[in-house]
């Protein structure tokens, strides 16, 4: 213990440079020869260094504490709290905005996709809701037709009744007939047949796809022209006006009665009416007539989802179409005179009319 202390004192004297030159050389010699003492010296050096660091840090700490005490803590506290509150508010606001933005995005995407889906569905539905009323003739009808043809042997029409059927009506005495475009679309040959069973070959001379109308001309020598009993009414008919139609949903002419139920057609089509009238496949192209026997429209199709709703192209549009036709195909204006059917009762009107309504048979 005592020796340790003496050694420590010697080491300190050595490190602090208090030794005389002679002593120092002796001590250096001792360090070199005695590793234990050398280690002690180094250890002490390290210790002093640590002690120095310790002191330095304590000193610094004291200075810091002093500075800290000089700070105006109440003010700083208040400032910090205030700024924290604004930061918190901002954070909340930012969070709210972010959330809102996310919600808005989701809402937007959802509504857009919903609209897209609905529109898609609606489009699909529209096509499903609208149906052309041309007739697909089946075998039974064919055989029936064949029988009729047998009975009326003067007809030169082919025995085959055709693939599709519709209705058409004369717009001039010399064999111009209006029907629907969809009836004659893609036809190889077209025959028209009246209620008496007389069939004539016809050719389509003008087609308007947008309004679904086609003009046929009878190209048959046996056809005899006769004056039309009815006229084309270019004015719009009033809502609720009673109308009737005659068409060939079967091989027999069929009379149907109804009224104008809307001034626009399918999906708001302004060139057409909505008509509440029984319509069946085969009625396509049938004339729509008012009480005076004037043509007010052409039956084109019906709505599949509800019964008794049909659509008819307005006669004004037909007139427009006839006016538009190329000069070389111009029709004699038989339609402009006054109707001969006015004042007649319905039965007589029909009797007069049925000669001018044709069944259109299409082969393809």
């Amino acid at each position, binding site marked *: 213990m005592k020796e*340790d*202390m003496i050694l*420590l*004192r010697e080491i300190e004297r050595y490190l602090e440079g208090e030794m005389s030159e002679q002593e120092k050389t002796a001590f250096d010699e001792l360090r070199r020869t005695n590793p234990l003492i050398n280690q002690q010296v180094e*250890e*002490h050096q*390290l*210790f*002093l260094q*640590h*002690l*120095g*660091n*310790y*002191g*330095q*840090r*304590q*000193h*610094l*700490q004291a*200075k*810091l*504490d002093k*500075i*800290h005490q*000089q*700070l105006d*803590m109440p003010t*700083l*506290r208040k*400032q*910090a*709290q205030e*700024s*924290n509150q604004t*930061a*918190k508010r901002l954070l909340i606001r930012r969070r709210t905005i972010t959330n809102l933005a996310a919600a808005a995005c989701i809402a937007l995407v959802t509504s857009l996709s919903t609209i897209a889906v609905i529109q898609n569905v609606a489009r699909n539905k529209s096509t499903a809701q609208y149906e052309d009323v041309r007739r697909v003739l089946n075998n039974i009808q064919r055989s029936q037709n064949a029988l009729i043809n047998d009975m009326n042997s003067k007809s030169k029409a082919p025995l085959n009744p055709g693939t599709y059927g519709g209705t058409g009506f004369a717009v001039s005495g010399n064999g111009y007939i209006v029907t629907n475009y969809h009836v004659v679309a893609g036809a190889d040959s077209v025959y028209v047949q009246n209620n008496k069973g007389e069939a004539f070959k016809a050719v389509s001379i003008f087609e308007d796809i947008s309004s679904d109308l086609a003009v046929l001309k009878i190209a048959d020598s046996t056809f005899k022209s006769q004056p039309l009993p009815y006229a084309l009414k270019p004015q719009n008919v009033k809502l609720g006006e009673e109308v009737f139609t005659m068409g060939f949903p079967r091989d027999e002419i069929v009379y149907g009665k109804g009224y104008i139920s809307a001034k626009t057609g399918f999906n708001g089509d302004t060139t057409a009416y909505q008509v509440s009238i029984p319509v069946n496949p085969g009625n396509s192209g049938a004339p729509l007539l008012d009480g005076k026997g004037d043509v007010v429209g052409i039956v084109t199709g019906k709505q599949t989802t509800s019964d008794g709703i049909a659509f008819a192209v307005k006669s004004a549009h037909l007139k427009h179409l006839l006016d538009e036709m190329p000069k070389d195909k111009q029709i004699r204006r038989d339609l402009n005179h006054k109707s001969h059917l006015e004042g007649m009762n319905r039965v007589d009107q029909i009797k007069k009319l049925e000669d001018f309504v044709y069944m259109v048979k299409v082969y393809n």
Partner: protein
Amino acid sequence: MVLWVTKCLITVLRVKQNQDITRDRELLLGLAKGDDKSLEIIYSENFPVVLRMILQHNGSEDDAKDVFQEAIIVLYEKVQSGDFTLSSRLKTFLYSVCRHLWLKKVQRTYGLYALSPELEEVIPATEELEEHNARDQEFRIMEGAMSSIGQPCQTILEDYYLHKKSMQEIAEKFGYTNAENAKNQKYKCLMRLKKLFFDQYKTP
């Protein structure tokens, strides 16, 4: 035109930042020399930000003080060692060190998962702190050893080794008959301190 204005703005900002860094470097130079004024400026300018940060993360004012002072010590050690060049602004450096220290403190106290997710590091300060941790360890050991050798011993050693007082002064202060007696007492104390210190301090 817009481009030109933007360019000018960027230049101005850069110059401003450079000025700030230059000023920060001057302050650090002062700190290295032990200039109390520099220390005071650094302390009073940066403490409010740290206080705000700690308060924001549910710390107390004392927490803020502890953390900030530790950061200053880190900075001081760095500057003293002489190989420290300031790459970011002093404010950023202190702020990130404080954040890091607070993070560790919270982890120690409340466990790993009690952390708010916003308390992430701005600048990773791990490197700076590793060195500091070693030094801090040494300091704690020395502090512990000092406090366990008793008041008179501690004062003698501090007076001699830290406050660089002469043995004569110490002898007078403690009422020893002569400096030689005081010296003997000092060696006794020193030996106890060394023993306590090296018991815990493993020589590398």
